[in-house]
């Protein structure tokens, strides 16, 4: 049965909230403003943290895809779907913050910066993951197909990044903000926000997996309910 006692979650949520408070403090008060770009550079901390969460999610999706294909255990499929969903949400945030950060610095909403392009293509791949998930009825077939999609998507990342970098090598190489060496307080701010987002990722993944498992349980119960009355009736006659 699904453990519906929620005791671990509040503890996790409070600890994540604390980490977030520390991160906000570190980013806004502890870390100095960056000389060249000024305040706007502070977007970078959470921008990179979102990217970390997205990367963690897609790695989990790939690993659970391989695990499903090997073990054929549907719990891996549930974990994979939860991970991809979180990954998609945070990739959207990465793109949003990337553009909002790029606009003032390079006065263009979108630059074909290799990392941003990779995030964009990743966004399409894992959006396609959900389109595929909606197109297949049988659970085991859907799980196998989605596992392959998650693996293919993850395997594609290095190639996308490599080709985006090669693609750009024609354009003049723009000085990249994070290339600037980080003053120690900046580094601590970055590390704290990375930790906060990693904790957040843990909470979201746990919750999403429980929700998907609950939905599956409901489907099974409904299925049994549809059959139950028929058998009950026959037994009586």
């Amino acid at each position, binding site marked *: 049965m699904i453990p519906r006692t929620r005791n671990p979650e509040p503890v996790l949520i409070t600890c994540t909230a604390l980490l977030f408070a520390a991160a906000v403090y570190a980013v806004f008060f502890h870390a100095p403003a960056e000389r060249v770009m000024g305040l*706007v550079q502070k977007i970078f901390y959470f921008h990179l943290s979102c990217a970390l969460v997205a990367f963690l999610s897609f790695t989990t999706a790939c690993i659970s895809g391989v695990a499903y294909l090997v073990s054929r255990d549907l719990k891996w499929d549930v974990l994979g779907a939860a991970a991809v969903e979180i990954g998609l949400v945070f990739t959207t*945030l990465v793109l949003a913050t990337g553009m909002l950060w790029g606009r003032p610095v390079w006065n263009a909403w979108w630059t074909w910066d290799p990392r941003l392009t990779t995030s964009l293509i990743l966004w399409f791949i894992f959006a396609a993951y959900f389109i595929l998930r909606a197109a297949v009825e049988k659970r085991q077939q859907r799980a196998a197909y989605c596992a392959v999609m998650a693996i293919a998507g993850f395997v594609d990342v290095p190639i996308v990044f490599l080709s985006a970098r090669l693609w750009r090598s024609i354009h003049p190489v723009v000085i990249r903000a994070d290339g600037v060496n980080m003053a120690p307080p900046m580094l601590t701010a970055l590390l704290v926000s990375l930790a906060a987002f990693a904790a957040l990722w843990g909470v979201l993944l746990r919750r999403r997996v429980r929700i998907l498992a609950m939905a599956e349980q*409901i489907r099974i119960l409904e299925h049994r309910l549809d059959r139950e009355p028929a058998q009950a009736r026959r037994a009586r006659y």
Partner: protein
Amino acid sequence: MNSTFFLIAAYLAIWAGIFGYLLVTGRHQQRLARRLEMLEERISRTEAGQ
């Protein structure tokens, strides 16, 4: 400086994203939990009724 506008916009975007997602999943979880309890109760009633 207009660049602080973008800083604020970016942070709003992140908070909106995170809290929005937490809110949606939280409400979704409650709805499913209620539905699960209702179903289990109906199952136990039909099994008892048999």
